[in-house]
């Protein structure tokens, strides 16, 4: 089990990166009026066929074919957290059409984990594969924060070293 929602997010988004996603869109919505906490991770990776999709939210599913003992608990953990907190878990996917994982929770539920260190999650994802556009969309009662690791492209190393030498 994870103590923070942001760890669930890191875990699921790592799946997205492994699935060859170029964009990973993380949307976190907190709504106090509806007493809702919602997390959605959407990617444009290779997706899953219907048979795989039926298996994935069960325990111990892995895409690694050489595994004697499959581990694969990530989605099952998130599902457990959502259902424990009077929420819902949903996964949509199709072969070569990406995957969207959504988990909702009752925000005031005593088992609802804290959001935790979302910064560290985003940093870890960016470092895991800088070629992937990691997007974070955070919504909290009408307040919003949007981040994209592609927002302004990092200057090429040559340009940066020139700027450095000018200082």
């Amino acid at each position, binding site marked *: 089990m*994870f103590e923070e929602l942001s760890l669930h997010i890191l875990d699921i988004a790592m799946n997205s990166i492994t699935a060859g996603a170029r964009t990973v869109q993380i949307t976190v919505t907190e709504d106090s009026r509806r007493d809702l906490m919602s997390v959605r991770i959407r990617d444009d990776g290779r997706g899953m066929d219907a048979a795989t999709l039926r298996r994935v939210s069960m325990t111990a599913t892995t895409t690694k074919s050489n595994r004697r003992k499959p581990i*694969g608990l990530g989605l099952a953990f998130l599902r457990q957290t959502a259902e424990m907190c009077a929420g819902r878990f949903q996964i949509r996917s199709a072969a070569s059409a990406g995957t969207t994982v959504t988990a909702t929770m009752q925000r005031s539920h005593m088992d609802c984990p804290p959001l935790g260190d979302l910064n560290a999650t985003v*940093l870890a994802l960016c470092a895991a594969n800088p070629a992937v556009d990691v997007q974070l969309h955070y919504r909290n009662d009408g307040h919003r924060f949007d981040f994209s690791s592609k927002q302004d492209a990092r200057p090429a190393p040559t340009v940066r070293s020139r700027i450095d030498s000018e200082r």
Partner: protein
Amino acid sequence: MNLEQLKKLKEKAQRQVALREGDKKYRVVFSMGTSGIAAGAREVMTTMLDEIEKRGIEDVEMRVTGEIGLVDAEPCVRVEEKDGEKTTYAKVTAESARKIVTEHLQKGKPVLGLAVGKQKSAE
């Protein structure tokens, strides 16, 4: 937080992310599967990124992998050297993560006491 601080933060994050690129002497691979994350791999990774950036160590690249099958030994960090030498560190904490950076990545001496599957007598 003012604009200047934000810019500094951005530059720092860029230097950390840049650890991924190029043909470097060391490659640090984090096991970032479900069991690794549950055991604290994210904190180990951010600690190491921080420490490497702080010490200005440049001959290092960062990679991330999924489950490596050492569930009870997580968080695991593998340091691969250019000559093919691999050292796997198990049950890494923030403290031992810093030690791996200062000893192995900076001074080139593997921390054998923390490694798995290596002769410990050498330390």
